């Protein structure tokens, strides 16, 4: 291939005039990056891969060059670096220039659908084929539970078949979750207990509702115990987070609109979300709907009502639960909560309100575990590297239980710990809170003993 000229904006502009950037990329956002490098030490893919192209600064630079036509959007190397990004947005937290990395990345991904086979397959099946379709999801959920009931995971582990089957590792090492047969839907309204303090909507989600039904129930319980009427819309909703983070712009836009509609007109003080990825996505509907002039404004207004469950509860002021849970717990920050929504302290506060619970900090609790939406399926090797260091830090922390706040992270870390032979269950912050408020069922043995 021919060599590309040195890009030197300043001099090039004097020579050729201002280039017109590619449509679909907001050049102002791209130029916020001053290539200072402050984000590099916080980027998990840079730490694993060591190449500038896999650092936030390198990615911003590539997107800038692509937008200016210096490299092609469909260049396989451009794609490789862009899709090798966890989209964890740790770089956003680190960046003093206020670069909106997540948004820029989504714009770039939207302009270059991935060519790699594995990536395409995951997209076709999971992002477009399954998640947006309630009925298909339900069937899959049924199979999942049936398989667990038939002790399939154990079989997979014993035979080693998990190593070759697609999704094998997740099937073989499932988190403690809903292994029980499907439970009834949450009622349309769970009434507030005690003085009524708010009326909130609860997003039950797609994967969340199938795999972590109990977590939803406990979230509703925690809300109700704290004086909230909890409204659950009739429709089964996928907020479009996975699609949008993966650059599936059209699917994402459609799902966003549907989700908004479902919560509209219910007189809610807030829409509470217990999955960090969904919450962060729903807080950015304005961006998702940027091509839809009519809904854009409404999207922004809707986003302002969205709250993460612990964020909302801490803001409201938690009523102390009665039940003790004597446990050493470490909290793992989901990227989409700590970096995406800048919610860092609240989940910790929600945990420490539980009597008897000791919160310990693990190293790098705000580093991505490698789950990253569908990333662990599309880029298993890099994902594994991130998971390995996460598992190491968890073990070093001496925690008995890990609390997190996103289904993807819980699945991933659970799988990692089990494979490492560690009996350290990974649960949702709302699980612990729910159990502390008196919920029964599905608690891992160590938690059950701690509650005694």
């Amino acid at each position: 291939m021919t060599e590309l000229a040195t890009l030197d904006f300043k001099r090039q502009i004097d020579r050729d005039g201002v280039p017109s950037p590619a449509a679909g990329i907001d050049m102002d956002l791209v130029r916020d990056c001053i290539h200072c490098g402050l984000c590099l030490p916080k980027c998990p893919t840079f730490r694993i891969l060591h190449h500038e192209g896999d650092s936030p600064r390198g990615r911003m630079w590539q997107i800038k060059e692509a937008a200016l036509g210096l490299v092609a959007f469909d260049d396989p190397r451009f794609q490789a670096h862009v899709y090798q990004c966890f989209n964890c947005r740790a770089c956003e937290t680190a960046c003093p220039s206020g670069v909106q990395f997540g948004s820029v990345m989504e714009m770039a991904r939207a302009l270059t659908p991935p060519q790699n086979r594995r990536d395409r397959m995951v997209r076709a099946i999971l992002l477009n084929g399954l998640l947006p379709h309630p009925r298909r999801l339900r069937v899959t959920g049924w199979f999942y539970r049936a398989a667990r009931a038939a002790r399939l995971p154990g079989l997979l582990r014993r035979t080693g078949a998990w190593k070759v089957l697609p999704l094998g590792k997740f099937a073989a090492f499932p988190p403690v979750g809903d292994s029980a047969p499907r439970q009834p839907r949450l009622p349309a309204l769970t009434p507030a207990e005690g003085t009524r303090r708010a009326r909130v909507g609860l997003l039950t989600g797609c994967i969340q509702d199938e795999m972590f039904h109990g977590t939803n129930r406990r979230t509703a319980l925690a809300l109700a115990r704290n004086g909230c009427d909890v409204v659950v819309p009739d429709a089964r909703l996928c907020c479009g987070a996975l699609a949008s983070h993966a650059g599936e712009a059209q699917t994402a836009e459609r799902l966003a609109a549907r989700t908004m509609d479902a919560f509209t007109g219910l007189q809610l003080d807030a829409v509470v979300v217990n999955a960090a990825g969904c919450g962060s996505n729903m807080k950015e509907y304005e961006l998702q709907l940027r091509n839809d002039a009519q809904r854009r404004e409404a999207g922004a207004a809707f986003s302002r009502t969205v709250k993460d469950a612990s964020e909302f509860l801490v803001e409201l002021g938690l009523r102390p639960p009665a039940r003790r849970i004597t446990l050493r717990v470490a909290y793992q920050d989901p990227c989409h909560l700590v970096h995406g929504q800048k919610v860092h302290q609240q989940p910790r506060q929600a945990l420490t309100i539980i009597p008897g619970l000791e919160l310990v900090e693990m190293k790098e609790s705000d580093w991505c575990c490698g789950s990253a939406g569908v990333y662990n399926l599309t880029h298993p090797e890099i994902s594994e590297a991130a998971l390995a260091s996460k598992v190491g830090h968890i073990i070093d922390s001496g925690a008995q239980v890990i609390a997190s706040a996103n289904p993807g992270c819980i699945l991933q870390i659970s799988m990692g710990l089990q494979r490492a032979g560690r009996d350290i269950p990974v649960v949702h912050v709302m699980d612990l809170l729910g159990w502390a408020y008196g919920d029964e069922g599905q608690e891992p043995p160590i938690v059950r003993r701690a509650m005694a």
Partner: protein
Amino acid sequence: MDAATRERLLGRLRAVVGDRYAFADPYEVRLYQYDASPETALPDVVVIPGTAAEVAQVVKICADAEVPITARSAASSLAGGTVPVQRGVVITFARMDRILEIDADNLRAVVEPGVVNLSLSQALRPHGYYYVPDPSSQGACTIGGNVGTNAGGPHTLLYGVTVNHVTGLELALASGELVQVGGRKAGSASGYDLTGLFVGSEGTMGIATKIWVKIQPLPPVQKTLMAVYPDVETASNAVSAIVRSGILPAAIEMMDKLSIQAIEAASHAGYPLDAGAVLLLEVDGIPELVEELGERMAKVCRESGASEVRVAKDEAERQALWKGRKGAFSAMGRLSPDFYVMDGVVPRTKLPETLAKIDAISARTGYKICNVFHAGDGNLHPLVLFDAFKPGQYEAVLRIGDEILKLCADAGGSVTGEHGIGLEKRENIRYIFSDDDLEVMDRIRHVFDPHGLMNPGKVFPGEVVEGSAPSRAPDHAPRRAANVAGGDEIWV
């Protein structure tokens, strides 16, 4: 470099570091053309070695093939220090980021060059120690890069810059040897102080592959004060007043109105938006003393015209103020799409007049210039705001930069206090050094690097390296200084 030569070179380098860590793919090498300065140039090959021995072999291979070598650590250089103007090989230290030893008994730490400055201090904290030099970029820049530029920071006012905290180096030299100079002990008793000489040589003498640094006990408490002034002149006079008062603050930083606006937009650090200038001051020590010094300093500030003196009431507030200050450059992104940072130094007493002159330049040219800098050292960082997408602006800004540096030199100062000469200021160096001065330095460079292969095109003005190395990219004709001055009067 022709394709065949490049392939041959690449093959040899890959045999040392493995295929993944040496590449010449024209797409990938584009990502090593920049650092935090506005300068860019493409390398031929990029190498990411994993050990000192690999670095030495890489250097040897390049030297044998007479290919220029540019060390690139975090590439946060603001002087274009890592930009490979004469192409060749870029060596980065992304994989050499291990803290090799924390030797608290000897008050030393031993690190690889890619260790991020801040992560060293974080690792030392549980032991009760820290590494003093704290460039504002400390979350990004590395100890290797700090050695390259002899980096300073807000807290180097009282405790000294990088060179005062480095006691030994392992160097990969152009000859392909790996040599240790200095070491764990303090100071050298026999032989020339090659450690001191090397620090700040910006990769032109060789590559540091291992670094022995001093570590220092953490001060029991730190107190940070913010003094609000109506304008920069009053604030800069206050700096001299504080220094004269006999108090030795650990840091004295100044921010002008524009900078405050940018900082507040970026981080809500708590600076007053209506202030003309703000001084950020810090004292450290034992609690009783810090209390007393804080009060004395607040008094001096008030007497020197501060309308308000605020003491950070807790660690969170203190951190917020410092976070704002340290994020200041990057925060400029909020005021303007591009900016150009100068790094001039003037004697403290010349601060007011120099700032006034810079103001006049801004008024005359119409470019906004803000100032956020290490006032205690007289180390100015005027930031000229511009838009690179507007034709002509970049060139105009470069001229303004020249003019400002000339001003600093004329005031008895220097053209760089901590960022280094790099690519950007190599013509400006003539403002402070005569040909004779530069000739002696060049001889020394020659001792380390006889064939001019180590980061060529940096530090020295208008240099052209002979030999097979390709000449400078056409975009990089040397920028002549506006006014070349001869040595003596300027220097003193």
